[in-house]
């Protein structure tokens, strides 16, 4: 049910942009006002959420240790999965953020016939997740060409690599294919794996459909319904340099572009209110970003407060005679 709701929500968004631009002639709203609003919401919302997390302290040193601790000099420490230095943590976090190290550990646990539990490889989620996130990033970087007058060399290189499997013209970007396949896989596993379907909320399907919509409109625009690319670049340059575009420029770009841009705007505006914030959150996770050195260096809890304890004196008062009877030394006879 969640998936159907999310699907129609995205369809509705597409229709809003389509009708708004083609029937309502609201190019200015969809091309200027909404993108600006979305970016403002994204930036302030993102910062607000991160500050909100940051406002709660980390009272205890609680890394999840996934390897041998540093103890005796002759025992080989796992310096990455159980880091005792900041460098170790940096490497651990880099592997986590760039390569999804923890997800790579994934196993499939199954109960076989003879009541045996068997553990199998389960790398598809890791692969699809990695493929999706990296293509998303590369696509985002590629789009910088619209915001910079002279396309910088690194971006040209990325474009060149991304399109080395040239199929006719225009060049086919590998990332376009990868992102569509990966997101489709991520959607299908939500639908077809009973456990994953059971835990999925509308808020899990919605971003998937939204991203599918963004990628699909992008692909359609590039390969099928051609839009005025020069106009798009002029608009984009204008937006980043706060120059108000004229009506003629806005009208000269095809409607598909506005649908694409509207979905992107929704994506960014939705971001701070959603699970997509895992992008910022992963860096702040105390089980991953802390040094496992809590016996070497005292970790301070800012809200540590004195507590009521049962003191030794009270204990001795309770048991003095019994202690003396058992030959245990006491403070006061």
């Amino acid at each position, binding site marked *: 049910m969640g998936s159907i709701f999310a699907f129609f929500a995205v369809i509705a968004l597409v229709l809003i942009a389509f009708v708004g631009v083609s029937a309502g002639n609201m190019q200015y709203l969809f091309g200027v006002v909404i993108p600006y609003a979305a970016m403002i919401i994204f930036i302030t919302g993102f910062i607000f*959420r991160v500050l909100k997390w940051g406002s*709660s302290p980390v009272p205890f040193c609680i890394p999840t240790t996934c390897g041998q601790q540093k103890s005796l000099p002759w025992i080989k420490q796992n310096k990455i999965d159980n880091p005792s230095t900041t460098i170790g943590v940096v490497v651990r976090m880099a592997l986590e953020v760039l390569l999804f190290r*923890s997800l790579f550990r994934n196993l499939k646990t199954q109960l076989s016939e003879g009541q045996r539990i068997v553990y199998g490889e389960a790398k598809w989620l890791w692969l699809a997740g990695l493929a999706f996130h990296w293509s998303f990033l590369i696509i985002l970087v590629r789009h910088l060409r619209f915001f910079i007058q002279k396309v910088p060399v690194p971006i040209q290189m990325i474009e060149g690599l991304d399109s080395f499997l040239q199929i006719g013209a225009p060049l086919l970007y590998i990332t376009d294919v990868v992102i569509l396949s990966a997101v489709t896989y991520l959607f299908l596993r939500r639908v077809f794996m009973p456990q*994953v379907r059971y835990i999925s909320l509308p808020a899990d399907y919605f971003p998937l459909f939204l991203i599918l919509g963004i990628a699909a409109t992008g692909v359609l625009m590039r390969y099928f319904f051609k839009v005025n690319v020069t106009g798009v670049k002029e608009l984009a340059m204008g937006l980043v340099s706060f120059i108000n575009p004229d009506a003629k420029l806005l009208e000269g770009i095809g409607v598909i572009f506005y649908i694409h841009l509207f979905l992107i705007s929704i994506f960014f505006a939705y971001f701070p209110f959603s699970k997509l914030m895992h992008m910022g959150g992963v860096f702040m996770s105390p089980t991953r970003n802390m040094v496992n050195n809590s016996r070497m260096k005292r970790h301070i809890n800012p809200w540590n407060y004195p507590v009521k304890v049962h003191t030794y004196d009270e204990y001795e008062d309770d048991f003095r005679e019994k202690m003396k009877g058992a030959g245990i030394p006491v403070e006061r006879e």
Partner: protein
Amino acid sequence: MAKFTAKPDELAKIDFRPPRTGWMDTPVEIKEHMFCHAAKPKELETVGFPNAHEWRPNDEDWKLPENWERTILEGMKDLLGKYRSFRLFMDICVRCGACADKCHFYIGTGDPKNMPVLRAELMRSVYRGNFTLAGKILRKIAGARDLTVNVLKEWWYYFYQCTECRRCSVFCPYGIDQAEITMMGRELTNLLGLNIGWIAGPVAACYMKGNHLGLEPHTITSSMEFFVDDIETITGIRVNPTFNRKGAEILFVTPSGDLFANPGTYTAMGYLMLFHELGLDYTWSTYASEGGNFGFFTTNEMAKRLNSKIYAEAKRLGVKWILGGECGHMWRIIHQYMDTWNGPADFLEAPVSPITGTRFDNAKATRMVHIAEFTADLIRHGKLKLDPSRNDHLKVTFHDSCNTSRGMGLLEEPRYIIKNACNHFYEMPEDTIREKTFCCGSGTGLNASENMELRLRGGFPRANAVKHVNEHHGVNMLANVCAIDRAALTTSMDYWVPGVSVCGVHELVGNVLVMKGEKERTQDLRLEPLPGKEGNE
């Protein structure tokens, strides 16, 4: 309550198909043998917990205090402000499901609310409904729901079906740790007096008497007397432990379970023999006679209150440093919490082994060393004379405790000791050991008897891995470094893998330790004949 009688074959038939109704629309069913009895009000009052009252989990009416919803929501707000982990873990889960089949309770029950992700959603849904804009506006579409009596019962039921083992957090791409969420859930249920007897009893006992079992000082010395007698029978040597002795170099703290129940008692005998042989200047304490800390399974504050005794006693006795025995959650606490709570331990010295001169730099602030670190160092320096052939009748495997593996990283030290004390050591399958180890099924104060089905189901994955090495290598001894393991795994093995015994690592050491002036050994620490040595007498 009817006695739990299900056979292993029945229990191992697990249905993993989720119910037809969505989880928010599937009300919790509090099932017999899956939960613990309620705490007695008196025990909660001993430590000053709020809203202590008589209630029963399977009653319709839990006799909740007035305005309980407000108590919970204000409690949540407080905890969200105190713990970044909690706030973050409420927000960033993407429900990828990687954690789902990593939980021993999910594997053993097939109940989807035992998937860590869903156990967390039980609380996230209330968080969203009350603390997030999207949840307040979009309600169910945003995965939000109201806090109702049924939701509270669901929290209680499932937060006391989690042993805070952290296995899920190893696999989570953001390191979301269900243990943190369960801890918050238990903090909140404790605001309403909804604790369980198996936790509240030991907490009250530990607070007043110094240990979970409520052993009074003279009982501790007399149980130790039994060990001393047994050691003399076995070795001909009379060891001489001291209690509350001022001026000792080292304070030794271990879980009280090892002073009371088999097979932990044999581990305690192992300690006594080792320390005697080394001539260690150490003392036991009857005031700080508990390394474990069931307070940790209630509230952070309670855990700190119980833990305070260790440093207080070390200071009173004027020892140089502290040595800690084999225990799981005790070491999570000593490693990750103690110094923060009750430090700095500036009245102690950085620990140095008096035998080898090794400085334990990894414990230079907390000033407390794990006995496995201590003994591994002794063996490495050749300070112990060991005769591993005495353990030749044992085929040993090692169970990593959740807390020492995922909340510390003590993996190789116990293995090194076992390999030096035993000639036959076999590892369980790779995906069930070290950081991927499975819980015994009875941690966090769930080792009661009325919840036996839960414990056996939770212990199923571990038992299954033991069964594997039992069948392939004839493994008959499951070694571990945790007092709860020693109690819980014994029950689990009897049920799932009969014929496999359970022991602490230092029982194995005690067996093979060649002590100066000892007589020819014919018995092991269990006073059972040593195979091949019976004829020598």
